[in-house]
């Protein structure tokens, strides 16, 4: 219990530190938001009024405390570009991103662990080496470039192969994200999701396979496998029920560590496929120098990472088969 409380405490402090860092980052940047908002011909009086409106003339500490208080109350500020509350845009974008992120994470883990396990069983064979080179290559390909290649494949590529338009996958233009009134809208969403999920899952799985392989090779070195074989299990059962399970906690820990990477990939994928989630929101905000939105999205991504790490820490002991059922 004390351990649990301490773990929650550190996560909370970490979140506060991240808030402070992002605030410091935005406020150390040259130029201020008021200058960005006004046309160049605006006079000093207008500038002063806008600065007062945006409370930019208050001392930094006061701005910081007010901003922190607002965040604690769930108020992420107002977008400089649209003049609407940031919470509104985030509320629209978050579920869209979550859908993409969670489905590709699931596929990433399934594909990555089974590939790593298959490689570990044949460690050192030509097939293992070929798969290592393949996964390293996929892992080394920029996601935005793979996305562009996928777009080219379903547009020009499919057309040149003579595939009728009805059977082609759509590249962009998701109609109404987050609104699912009927089966047709659902089908439309799924069809649009195929390419982004595939790009994210393939690059993610390549990364997971790389460390799953070495974790399972390490586990197979131990006594677990010999004992399982000794008590008369088939090679296959010894492998899936014992060796892979022993490696599972370290794989889970590494998957949690790769969450920031999946987030990064999704920013590019959302950008290329015009998927209206958090990544697209961040890219638009960066292009428009929309500071409140950049701050909010950065914080939410950090919160997602911190919560994932916390959950992994709490669940990890239960994944370890050697822990027993106490």
């Amino acid at each position, binding site marked *: 219990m004390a351990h649990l409380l301490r773990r929650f405490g550190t996560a909370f402090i*970490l*979140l506060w*530190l*991240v808030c402070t*860092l*992002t605030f410091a*980052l*935005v406020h*150390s*940047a*040259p130029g201020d938001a008021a200058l960005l908002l006004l046309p160049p011909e605006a006079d000093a009086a207008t500038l002063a009024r806008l600065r007062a409106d945006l409370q930019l003339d208050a001392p930094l500490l006061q701005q910081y405390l007010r901003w922190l208080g607002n965040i604690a109350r769930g108020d992420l500020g107002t977008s400089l570009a649209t003049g609407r509350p940031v919470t509104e845009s985030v509320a629209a974008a978050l579920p869209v991103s979550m859908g993409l992120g969670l489905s590709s994470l699931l596929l990433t883990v399934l594909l990555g662990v089974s590939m790593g396990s298959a490689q570990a069983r044949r460690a050192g064979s030509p097939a293992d*080496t070929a798969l*290592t*080179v393949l996964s*390293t*290559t996929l*892992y*080394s*390909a*920029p996601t*935005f*470039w793979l996305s*562009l*290649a996928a*777009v*080219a494949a379903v*547009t*020009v590529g499919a057309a040149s192969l003579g595939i009728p338009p009805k059977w082609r996958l759509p590249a962009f233009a998701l109609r109404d994200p987050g609104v699912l009134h009927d089966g047709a809208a659902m089908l439309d969403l799924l069809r649009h999701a195929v390419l982004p999920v595939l790009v994210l899952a393939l690059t993610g799985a390549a990364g997971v396979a*790389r460390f799953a392989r070495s974790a399972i090779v390490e586990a197979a070195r131990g006594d677990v496998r010999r004992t399982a074989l000794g008590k008369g299990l088939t090679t296959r059962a010894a492998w899936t029920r014992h060796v892979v399970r022993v490696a599972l906690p370290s794989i889970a820990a590494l998957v949690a560590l790769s969450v*920031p*990477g999946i*987030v*990064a990939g999704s*920013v*590019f994928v959302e*950008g290329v496929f015009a998927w209206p989630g958090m990544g697209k929101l*961040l*890219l638009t*905000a*960066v*292009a428009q*120098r929309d*500071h409140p939105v*950049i701050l909010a*999205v*950065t914080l939410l*991504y*950090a919160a997602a*990472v*911190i919560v994932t*790490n916390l959950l992994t820490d709490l669940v990890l002991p239960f994944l370890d088969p050697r822990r027993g059922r106490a």
Partner: protein
Amino acid sequence: MPRRVQLSCVALLLLVVACVAGPMLLQRDPTAIGDVLAQRYAAPLATDATGVWHLFGTDAFGRDVLARLLLAGRLSLLVGVAGAVLSGFTGALLGVLAGWRAGWMDMLITAAADMLQAIPRLVLLLACAALWRPGIPTLVTVLALTGWMGVARLVRAEVQGLVQRDFVAAALALGASPKRLLALHVLPNAIAPVLVATTLGIGSAIMLESGLSFLGLGVQPPSPSWGNMIAGGREHLVTAPWIALAPGLAVVITVTAATLIGDWLQERAAGQARG
């Protein structure tokens, strides 16, 4: 050394030599725009309307893709290596400090590392690139500032283990100053993880550079970089796919080679630790 690592070394070496020497030998200005209508969109291995042959074709402004690719490679490789080496150096320094001096220094460095690792590196880079003026100095600084944490953690653990060893006590007993002790006895023994992480870091730095330049936040045109070349080819994906394909392949080859070499170094280091 396995075959794939040998091939990776050869590929990287060839690429570096080509990028350094290529632009001097090709006698073509990769950024100059000539007779656009006659020269643009020449396919790879084709001759354009002015009679010049292009190995990788030309882009929308009639510039030779190969010449641009090699010039871009200089910048991309430079930014990648500089970013990774600076990250490795910062990480080693802070890791030694944290591992050697327990107490508030250790706490401060560990907290900073925790904090920076909680924010996805790309998001942090995007935020920084949006806030400060984009360009190569900003890019390298931000890459170094966001890449040191992993190395620092490894070095800290390594140093904490090393200071308990007898040879450190022996050096202290012989009157070695802390500076000499760290530089000559502790750091050489903790260098393996730094080398591995720096090699692997080159790949991720090149990838991040290309990503930021793709978004227009990294290397600014007309200077070519692999990322902004891909961005330039994005609009011509349908009519001239080679414009985006060539720089993408260059990134894939470089990052794959660096990662395969890094993985191999890591396996060797782990094998030595196991004995």
